[in-house]
């Protein structure tokens, strides 16, 4: 779960990391009222998960209440335009009004998870305010990393070492170790996969302030902080994620594509291999769907309906290799789905093997369905049927 900037900054504040003075607002009036009561130079920023707000004109300056109202209206008038990562764009539902900082320098500081080292890792660069991808292309030598031994945790020497190695401006040096320590604490306290300050601003009066906040929380750790359920409710799910959640599978377990061969498999690896198999057989995939482990009849039925009602699938290839998922349960789910669903009926190609496969095949046979033997055979049969449906 990725947090909005204002949510990330709330966590920064709790951790003791300085953020710009400001107010989270939902309407132009609220922006105007806030500026009226707090005269000065303000920045009005759209609260979205997408990047590229500045270029899209979704960050604007305001010197008085009237201007604040006007720029807020302008920002809220249209959604974030689509880009390559977010082809649907993103609606703008709220704004952050923040003091305009007099910035002298911008740096970058993040804590992420280094998969290979199996440790949290600090990433620091003296170049901030642009995407870290861009920094790594233009100034790769500027990126300093420090993997942290979890048995020791953070110690200020790490912050000092990073500040020197990354050649941060001397103005940062005194405050940086405490900021890095707070960031590390926050990373563990809230179960984050990434906490990023970009830019970490050094103001001309010598303050070090987190000018932006990017926080990605581990969905598997959300149970440790029940308050995040409310935070989650305001976050935009894309259509695929919403549909997946409604069907009772993980939000990353379902993704649609433009093709006509619907797919479902148990396990992400097999689901990806199933898509690859359909492609190899010359077909066009309608979706990715991992039904998950231990799927019961109800879940299988939900998944059938998820695919037939929401994708362009004209044929549905179900590929189950049972380990913890039991073949008889899957078979029962398919039979029930076909019997009870009011959704449109499309031809099924079912590959069912592994745990309790005999019982599963018996159930399918009783319902007049014939499972195929292998994944490639199933993929070819599904592609053949899809071609037939196209006529």
């Amino acid at each position, binding site marked *: 779960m990725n947090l909005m900037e204002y949510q990330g900054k709330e966590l920064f504040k709790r951790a003791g990391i300085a953020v710009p003075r400001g107010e989270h607002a939902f309407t132009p009036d609220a922006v105007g009222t806030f500026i009226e009561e707090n005269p000065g130079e303000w920045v009005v920023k759209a609260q979205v998960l997408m990047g590229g707000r500045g270029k899209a004109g979704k960050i604007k300056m305001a010197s008085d209440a009237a201007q604040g109202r006007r720029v807020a209206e302008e920002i809220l008038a249209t959604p974030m335009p689509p880009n390559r990562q977010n082809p649907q764009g993103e609606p703008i539902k709220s704004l952050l009004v923040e003091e305009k900082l007099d910035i002298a320098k911008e740096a970058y500081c993040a804590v992420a998870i280094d998969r290979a080292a*199996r440790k949290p*890792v600090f990433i620091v660069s003296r170049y901030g305010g642009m995407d870290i991808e861009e920094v790594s292309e233009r100034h790769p030598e500027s990126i300093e990393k420090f993997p942290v031994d979890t048995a020791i945790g953070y110690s200020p020497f790490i912050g000092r070492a990073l500040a020197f190695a990354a050649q941060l401006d001397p103005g940062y040096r005194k405050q940086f170790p405490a900021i890095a320590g707070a960031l590390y604490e926050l990373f563990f306290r809230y179960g984050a*996969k990434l906490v990023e300050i970009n830019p970490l601003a050094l103001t001309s009066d010598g303050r070090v302030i987190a000018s932006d906040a990017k926080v990605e929380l581990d969905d598997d750790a959300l149970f440790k902080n029940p308050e995040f359920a409310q935070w989650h409710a305001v976050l935009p799910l894309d259509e695929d994620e919403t549909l997946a959640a409604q069907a009772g599978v993980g939000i990353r377990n379902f*993704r649609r594509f433009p093709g006509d061969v619907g797919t479902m498999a148990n396990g992400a690896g097999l689901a990806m291999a199933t898509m690859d198999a359909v492609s190899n057989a010359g077909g066009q995939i309608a979706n990715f769907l991992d039904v998950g*482990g231990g799927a019961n009849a109800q879940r299988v039925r939900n998944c059938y309906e998820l695919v037939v009602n929401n994708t362009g699938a004209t044929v549905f290839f179900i590929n189950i290799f049972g380990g913890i998922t039991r073949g008889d349960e899957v078979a029962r789910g398919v039979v029930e789905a076909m019997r009870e669903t009011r959704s449109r009926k499309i031809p099924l190609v079912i590959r069912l*093997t*592994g745990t309790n496969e005999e019982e599963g095949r018996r159930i399918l046979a009783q319902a007049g369905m014939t499972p195929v033997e292998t994944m490639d055979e199933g993929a070819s049969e599904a592609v053949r049927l899809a071609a037939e449906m196209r006529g």
Partner: protein
Amino acid sequence: MSIFLDKNSRVIVQGITGAEGSYHADRMVKYGTNLVGGVTPGKGGQTTPHGLPVFDTVKEAVEATGATHTCIFVPPPFAADALYEAYEAGITFAVCITEGVPVHDTLKVVGTTIGMRIIGPNCPGLISPGKALVGIMPGHIFKEGRVGVMSRSGTLTYEVVDLLTREGFGQSTCVGVGGDPIIGTTFVECLREFKNDPQTGALVLCGEIGGSDEEDAAAFIAEHLPEMPVVAFVGGRNAPPGKSLGHAGAIISGNFGTPQSKIAAFQAAGVPVADRPSDIPRLLAERLAVRA
């Protein structure tokens, strides 16, 4: 021989009275695993339907049975605790089946339980065919033989093994290392063990997009196992760019993580990459023929 597990390994199940724990304990016993007991706090003193003793703590289980291996079936919030308890009790080999363990819990566990080999979390476990099964793999598709198999996916492993068995390639040990970003045992760590296993005469490695385990494995094979016939598969070539691949994660691993990067790394190490799982047996036969 085999790696990590043989018929003498003394195994307990943590969470043995739960639905999944008891179901799979039964299957492990039927496969021939030397399952010596289980743990469920509050149910100590009971016995399982097989007459296996249930203990309140791992320490008691280890003292009473001499167990060295554990298989963990507890809900995600308690997985780290179960692993720490196993470590403190002297268990040296732990398989964590649980899916959905917070990544920070795993980070701390793997960073502190030095000396205990962990497989997973979010994995199907492992099997040394004909000897023992620890986990949730469907035993009947495996056959004893000489091919070592390692995979990040559960069900894809079964797919590949089924194909190998049908083509007459038995397996020495099959390890499902797990699908989480942080896992206790990587491909390279499996390769180190396979390298020293006299039963293993060929390897199949099933990777997928994301992370750099495949690239690391390719480099290890090139340096330490140049004579070993190895075939790889990389799942997810048609997958959309994963959200978790973005940003700082991508920075850490540079250009690693894409299917192209992984395929190129294997090819540079002289390891053929199968376009589809069903090509694996043929490629393996070719590699073995070249060697002979």
